């Protein structure tokens, strides 16, 4: 039996993560004949399967438990025999993932994106071979978009076994809550997953190489955030260089150099969250002249073109923050480019959110970055303690910090630590994208009482003075 396979396309996108699948759909909507290759059966990439979505599901579940246990009493609500079922939490998480997996498949069908399952490897610049369980098949396309994403980086001396030494992937499907957990790396992924298990009862200890947590955040945000997390019971060892690690019995032993002394840490589980590296294995990029830098990032020009210009690359495999929404915007822009439309991706406008309690969100320049760039700035900081809605919610921790250019009060950065910061930050992104000044923002209506008033008040502090402080 022979089936004739349609194997010629205008565009083949390699990788069906948030960058790849969005690029494929967008290109199809723009009239191109598109296929999308994904080596895993479920679509959606790291974000949907082992990243943003499952971590948010677990963060929510663990937060409901933690809130009920610790905060509900503030509202006059008390429980006897409060308990949780980790298995059910994991099942709920999996259901969410599965429904989105199907959702993307549906979107592919609706937009006539042909889905190819298998591993892609280039034969020439317009030809790839897909290896599946059933065998090999060749496909042709005029253009390719590489969107193969990234993988967690292990410690060189302590590879992942996803049982005791786990990456973020393993942390999203533990079968029991470890008594003690060491988290190597207090970045966004580390503090989020560390929070999940801390809330569920683990003793969580962070070993961070740098002098502060989530180092991409504004220093004030980072420091304030750390204090809040410490109050929740998370322990941080900063300037701690992990030098050795080994499994010992049923646990893990980690040696870290702190203040020139080697300290030993024991735990049931060690979560290694020291970063992610671009994943291009098996693509055989060297065969088609697609160059990568020393760290493995695919080098692209200002149109996402690799050193082989008919092949584009987006998302985690190119430079810039490894964020789903960054990959998405790049995917859309790359598709627009291939369809002959102009597009813009302004990297300064990419918001970054940490989904802990409280959340932390930021966009634009930190105070230090602005100073390093030689920009004269004014900053403001308005605490949620002075925000009426936050008080009603009994979530008063945190603040809104604004960095604005002195000469015209143009907003260059907004940093929020506080309830629903991830939602609040969108207002800042819109304002910045539209080149608004702090004065513009402070003269914009904000409903009362809302958390967003904290942004307004912070903006007022730049131009003149806050009312409620």
């Amino acid at each position, binding site marked *: 039996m022979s089936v004739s396979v349609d194997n010629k396309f*205008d565009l083949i996108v390699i990788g069906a993560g948030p960058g790849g699948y969005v690029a494929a759909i967008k290109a199809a909507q723009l009239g191109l004949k598109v296929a999308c290759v994904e080596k895993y059966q479920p679509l959606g990439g790291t974000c949907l399967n082992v990243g943003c979505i499952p971590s948010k599901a677990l963060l929510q579940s663990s937060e409901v438990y933690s809130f009920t246990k610790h905060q509900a009493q503030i509202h006059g609500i008390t429980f006897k025999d409060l308990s949780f079922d980790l298995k059910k939490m994991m099942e709920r998480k999996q259901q969410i993932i599965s429904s989105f997996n199907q959702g993307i498949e549906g979107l592919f069908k609706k937009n006539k994106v042909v889905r190819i399952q298998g591993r892609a490897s280039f034969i020439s610049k317009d030809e790839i071979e897909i290896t599946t369980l059933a065998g090999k098949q060749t496909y042709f396309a005029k253009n390719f978009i590489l969107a193969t994403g990234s993988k967690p980086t292990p410690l060189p001396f302590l590879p992942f076994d996803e049982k005791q030494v786990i990456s973020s992937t393993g942390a999203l499907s533990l079968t029991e809550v470890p008594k003690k957990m060491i988290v190597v790396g207090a970045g966004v992924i580390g503090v989020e997953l560390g929070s999940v298990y801390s809330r569920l009862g683990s003793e969580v200890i962070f070993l961070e190489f740098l002098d502060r947590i989530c180092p991409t955040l504004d220093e004030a945000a980072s420091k304030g955030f750390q204090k809040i997390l410490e109050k929740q019971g998370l322990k941080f060892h900063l300037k701690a260089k992990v030098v050795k690690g080994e499994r010992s019995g049923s646990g893990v032993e980690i040696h870290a150099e702190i203040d020139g002394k080697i300290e030993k840490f024991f735990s049931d589980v060690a979560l290694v969250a020291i970063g992610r590296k671009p994943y291009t294995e098996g693509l055989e990029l060297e065969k088609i002249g697609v160059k990568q830098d020393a760290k493995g990032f695919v080098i692209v020009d200002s149109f996402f073109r690799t050193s082989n*210009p008919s092949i584009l690359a987006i998302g985690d495999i190119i430079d810039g923050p490894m964020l789903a929404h960054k990959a998405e915007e*790049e995917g859309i822009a790359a598709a627009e*480019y291939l369809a002959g439309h102009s597009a813009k991706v302004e990297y300064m406008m990419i918001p970054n959110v940490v989904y802990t309690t409280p959340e932390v969100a930021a966009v634009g320049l930190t105070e230090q970055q602005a100073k390093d760039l030689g920009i004269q700035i004014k900053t403001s900081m308005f605490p949620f303690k002075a925000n009426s809605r936050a008080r009603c919610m009994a979530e008063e921790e945190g603040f809104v910090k604004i960095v604005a250019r002195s000469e015209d009060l143009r907003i260059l950065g907004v940093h929020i630590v506080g309830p629903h910061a991830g939602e609040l930050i969108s207002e800042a992104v819109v304002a910045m994208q539209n*080149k608004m000044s702090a004065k513009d923002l402070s003269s914009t209506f904000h409903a009362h009482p809302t958390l967003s008033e904290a942004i307004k008040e912070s903006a007022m502090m730049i131009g003149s003075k806050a009312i409620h402080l």
Partner: protein
Amino acid sequence: MKVEIKVPAVGESVTEATVARIIKQNGSFVEKNEEILELETDKVNQVVTAPEKGVLSLLVTVDQKVKISEVIGSIEPASIPSKPQSAPAAVEVKKEEVKKEVSFVKEAIRIPTEQYLKEQKKEEPAKKMEAPLPCDKKAPCQTPSGKRVRMSGLRRTIAQKLVEVKNTTAMLTTFNEVDMSAVMKIRSDQKDQFEKKFGVKLGFLSFFVTACSSALKAFPEVNAYIEKDEIVYNDSHHIGIAVSTEKGLFVPVLRDCQSLSFAQIESEVMVFAKKAREGSIGIADLQGGTFTITNGGVFGSLLSTPILNPPQSAILGMHKIQERPVAVGGQVVIRPMMYLALSYDHRIIDGKEAVGFLVHIKECLENPSKLLLES
């Protein structure tokens, strides 16, 4: 076969244009020579027309910068309009474009933070928040009102050039006055006959152009310009005539005025005036002038100091004809008088020549027979 639409050459020094207005939308059916879009350059606005009849596909958007001879779209020939905005046609075109591998998108898509900040600085140093002026208790407080409008490319160029002239030349102005009676008499005597014969009205301009040409011949420095350490003398008298339109001032050039008859001058001026009103003056019409005449008189000006049109070295300002009492042969008489102004670049033209030039024009106009004898 698809026919490409390219940015036409709009003049020697022009390498770039901006899409000012899109007249025919992407996917629409156009007739041959139908206007598709309007380009704005430093010097002039130029309309691009369809090279062929068919379905239009445009690759540019308003405000996009384009280079001369860049392909900005194409026409898929078709004899009858297909369904308006037909989707299949548009999709076809896109596929074609992708085949080429190299997209026509020219503006960078990825904007790193540093570049973003740099560009913001360059382009808009000030969306300044003006602090409201402190109220003076005596005077009513001024609330800032009104609007801001972005300068057009033409306006920006004008602004820049005018200041440049002031800064780089030694410009000054000399004045004289001319009794227009003789010219007016010839006009009233001859106008009907002239119009019947040549199909154009006999205006004042032909007298002035002819008088200027005669004076340029007598004072060749006025028709010359400086280029580095040399003075370049022009053989031909290409005289620019300033025409004011809604879009700004245009100065179309009458070529070889030294050999033009009154009728030729009048008919060319008429063509320019029509083109200027329609906005169809081409860049070729504006280039190569060696001297300029501007007429502030049409707006009622009695006296003004025109600004040079570089690299030219002189410009004549005509003004309003006004009846004034003047002394003629010991008697006060009423005469139709016009002040003349000659702004000149003192680096190349001495006072003696400048004054002589203006006196020469005055004499030609007061005794038109001189024109007959000297030109």
